[in-house]
């Protein structure tokens, strides 16, 4: 057991080193994403100034601005690159090597990515939260930070990450069907981006569509944690959405196992 832990620790540390080795690259990547946030920020500001209402679909201007930046923070924390890694291995055939290794592939990959995430979170979460709270203070004149909301938000992000992790791993197996992963991944990102509320809050959708989206696992990825942080999900609603997240973690975990089993058989039949 301790031996296994040591292996995973090695992967964790490899993930962290990745960030520091390509630090300049990493900083610019983040800067680029922050830039995109600012584009949204200005658009929404103009939208609120152009409209007559103080609130649009339940969002005030300050909430909307906070929503944009929180969405960035959350999606950075819960993102997962499994699709590409698995897909590449399927394409070049190294996936067959996975079967003869004594440690679980999913686990090593998870730990390597976690190492990466630890660095990201350490560098991002504090400035982002301070920034977000500064905006809220600026609009309302009082400190709105609630530690319980924040802690539940963190828990919700962990669930969200796991959902995303298992979903991306499962999706990676599409490489058996579509050879051009980059294109497939782009389509997936577009759909997931929209359904998880990254493009626009789900409450802006026509209400029937909104109800369906809220049930899908994608809302659990980014929308749910952000709504928790904002304090919009409270009491029994909060518990309901956390339960839904847990449900999707289990379902997608099961799905990834199932797909793995099927493709193992597929590979054995094909002879690698």
């Amino acid at each position, binding site marked *: 057991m301790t031996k296994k832990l040591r292996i995973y620790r090695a992967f964790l*540390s490899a993930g*962290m*080193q990745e*960030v*520091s*080795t390509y*630090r300049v690259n990493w900083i610019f990547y983040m800067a680029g994403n922050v830039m995109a946030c600012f584009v949204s920020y200005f658009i929404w500001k103009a939208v609120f100034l152009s409209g007559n209402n103080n609130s649009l679909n339940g969002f005030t201007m300050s909430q909307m601005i906070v929503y944009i930046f929180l969405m960035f923070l959350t999606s950075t924390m819960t993102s997962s690159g499994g699709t590409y890694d698995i897909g590449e291995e399927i394409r070049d055939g190294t996936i067959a090597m996975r079967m003869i290794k004594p440690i679980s592939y999913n686990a090593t990959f998870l730990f390597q990515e976690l190492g990466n995430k630890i*660095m990201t979170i350490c560098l991002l979460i504090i400035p982002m939260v301070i920034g977000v709270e500064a905006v809220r203070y600026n609009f309302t004149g009082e400190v709105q930070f609630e530690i319980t909301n924040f802690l539940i938000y963190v828990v919700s992000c962990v669930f969200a990450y796991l959902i995303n992790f298992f979903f991306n791993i499962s999706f990676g197996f599409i490489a058996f069907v579509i050879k051009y992963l980059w294109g497939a991944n782009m389509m997936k990102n577009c759909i997931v981006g929209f359904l998880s509320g990254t493009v626009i809050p789900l409450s802006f959708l026509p209400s029937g569509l909104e109800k369906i989206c809220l049930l899908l696992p994608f809302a659990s990825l980014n929308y749910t944690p952000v709504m928790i942080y904002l304090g919009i999900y409270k009491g029994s609603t909060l518990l309901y959405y956390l339960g839904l997240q847990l449900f999707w973690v289990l379902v997608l975990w099961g799905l990834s196992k199932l797909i793995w089993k099927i493709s193992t058989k597929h590979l054995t039949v094909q002879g690698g």
Partner: protein
Amino acid sequence: MIKVENLRKEFKKTVKEPGLAGSFKSLFHPKSERVVAVNDISFHVPKGEILGFIGPNGAGKSTVIKMLTGILTPTSGTCTINGKNPTENRKSYVKEIGVVFGQRTQLWWDLPLRETYGVLKEMYEVPDDSYKERMSFLNEVLELEAFITSPVRTLSLGQRMRADIAASLLHSPKVLFLDEPTIGLDVVVKDNIRKAIAQINEREQTTVILTTHDLADIELLADRIVMIDKGSNVFDGTISELKSRYGRIRELHLETNTKNAEKALGYREHFHFSDDDLKVEQEGSSVKVRFNSDTVSVSDMLAYTLKMVNVKDISVKDADIEEIIRRLYRQGV
């Protein structure tokens, strides 16, 4: 033909500290230092010569080759081919040379081989009629016919290497750089490639600069050797000069029924050989003894050996170049 004078190259290298704390630290305070990859290299190559350019891993071979092929800009020093200099006019310089990197192909991966040649023809502005002539020559020497219509990604390693060599020769360069041209190939294919290189050199008087770790390439092809280590020249001369200069290593082969011949012979105790000067290997009844004939003469060795064990058969020969170079790499010079 080729003049290399006082070539030097420095790189900047980032230093990483180990451990998790280290990765955090280097995130904010990256450290870097200057590394001298090539210190001071000079040599000349006359037209039509095949030069073996060798040295242990990390000696700076690739860096030199990359400077000679116009890829890297030297920190100082010059290299010229027919008076042309890559830093002054790269485009006209590279028209004079052909380059093959064994580990990296220059062919268009997804297209039939013929298409690559078509593009290169345009790139190097080879006229139609000389292109035809050229292709039939290369076809004859490298036997491309069988796979010229196959996509490059489907070629075997040996075919790919032949195709790459042909690609580098399409524009009739005066100098051909071959970096590890036989890497990963089987014995028969290696042999074919060597024959082709020798043939091209002979027929066209193409100057060849050959880097390789397979010393058989050097022994069979090279007229001369330049050896470098830690970024500096350590040897420049012919193979026989190398043999006479460094260690008169001889190999003694004997057949005997003595079980542990090394112990029975006791060379080390008797002649006081140092570790590097003697090596004994036994396989069944055949024993191979490598020794430095400067320390002990061949006749002394023979007389002593015949006295100590019961010998069925015995022969002496020069050690191959590989042995000499192995010793040089190990000790440094």
